């Protein structure tokens, strides 16, 4: 699926909850739990993205012209957000990843998690994902 289609799918999924933030977060937490864990061998120092409070691990590999990401976080809400980003950007081409606008985060009302002051490592994770894509194009 293209990134735009996945974005629309996620937006629809979250629209079900309307203004009920508890349900929205329950869903986010469920998404976090469903995230396939990163293999222990990839939970290395170099794969760690240090937020001030919660930590994120991200591993990238290149397969058939696409980037594949696996990731984990020690905080479940952060992990839910990580799961959304993986669903969106994993198995996409580097070009598509670089161009991805990520505006859907606004639309599902979770923008606060991508604030640079949030200290959860997510902003750095997205930056790292885009960097991986840029590096693969440069190769």
């Amino acid at each position: 699926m293209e990134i735009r289609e996945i974005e629309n799918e996620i937006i629809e999924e979250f629209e079900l909850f309307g203004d009920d933030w508890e349900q929205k977060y329950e869903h986010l937490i469920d998404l976090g739990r469903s995230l396939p864990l990163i293999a222990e061998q990839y939970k290395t120092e170099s794969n760690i993205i240090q937020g001030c409070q919660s930590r994120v691990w991200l591993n990238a590999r290149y397969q058939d012209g696409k980037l594949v990401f696996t990731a984990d976080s020690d905080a479940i809400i952060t992990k839910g957000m990580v799961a959304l980003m993986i669903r969106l950007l994993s198995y996409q081409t580097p070009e598509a990843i670089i161009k991805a606008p990520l505006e859907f985060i606004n639309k599902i009302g979770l923008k606060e998690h991508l604030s640079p002051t949030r200290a959860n490592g997510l902003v750095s994770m997205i930056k790292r994902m885009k960097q991986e894509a840029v590096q693969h194009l440069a190769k």
Partner: protein
Amino acid sequence: MEMKTVDSNIHLDVEAIRLNFPILTKKVNGQTLVYFDNGATVQKPIAVIDAINDYYSHYNANIHRGVHTLSREATELFEQARQTVAAHFRVVNPQQCIFTAGTTDGINMIAQGLAKSILKPGDEILLTAYEHHSNILPWQLWAHENGGVLKVIPLLSNHSLDIDSISTLITAKTKVIAVTQVSNTLGLITPLEPLLKLAKQHGIITVIDGAQAAPHLPVDLTALNPDFFVCSAHKMYGPTGIGLLYMREQWLKTLPMAKTGGGTIKTVSFEKTEYAEGALRFEPGTPHIAGAVGFAAALKFMNAVGVSNIYQHETELVNEAQHQLLQLPEVEIYGQSEHKAGVISFNLKNAHPFDVGTLLDKYGIAVRTGHHCTQPLMQLLGIQGTVRASFAVYNTKAEVHHFIEKLKRVIHLLA
């Protein structure tokens, strides 16, 4: 949310006190703010906001240097503020009360001053295992640059300080004991009397980090008589950017200055400077005059309520919160005690403090999560961080109950 208060063995009208704090009516995420992050900084009463406003509106001028009326008035306000601070902490000579930018600034001034005079390579400094980074790093900097040694007073299994171990840690090389009077993470109160007595017997310099004690407890510096004591106004209902550095009288003349410049002198030539005496020697540049005025207004507010009343009220809140938290099997409390100064730290088993804090915020409840600038303590406890609820005089039992109800929801959401 029902905000009616049933607090009070003491005659504190918390509802009336709350009216002094405009920010408490603010809505956060559509909910009435419950502010339990007072350990980080406390909200400001109208009296403080007005004092600062009034100063800038009617008195603003630079001090200690003008003959004109405004400058004299501003100087008077600034020096009156110093007297108010001195009286609050029972200091006889106000010159012993130096205005700083805050606790961190004060500790740096002490550490650098001692590094230039007393401390020698191989000397030892005693800290506690629950120090704030601000009372570790200035000493560590000296230790790394000069071959000094930091020694740590350990904690007992209940997380209180192992006071008995101190006599075994003291050696002929121990020059300074620098301890926090209250742990900002655990809320535990350091038993200062035995510690200061031991230090005195061994001729060791004592530095008290009062950042978390001064907001909650009466502090009598004449009775305690440490060498140095520091605190921050912003944790005591006052403005940010101003704090107190108290020093025993002898240090006023002998402690080398960490920084210098205009305002600290009697006469200057390019060859030589004769320094002013007293507090001014340590206050180079234009000080935070409005801050000092606001600090004094904050202390007047605290004294109008009564510091002992504040302590008693906050202790009731801590004990109520602790009692309720203990009913929840998912909760683990750190530093559990009946004698804490306004702070309670805990975790939900199997949940990251970040998740707990994020969800509580959605309910309008502001707590702090993380390491609270006490990473060595976190390493000791083997955890990444905690959730910390810390109280001020305007918090109510109704808020504590609301917090517990919402925490139960959080437990449910994270289950």
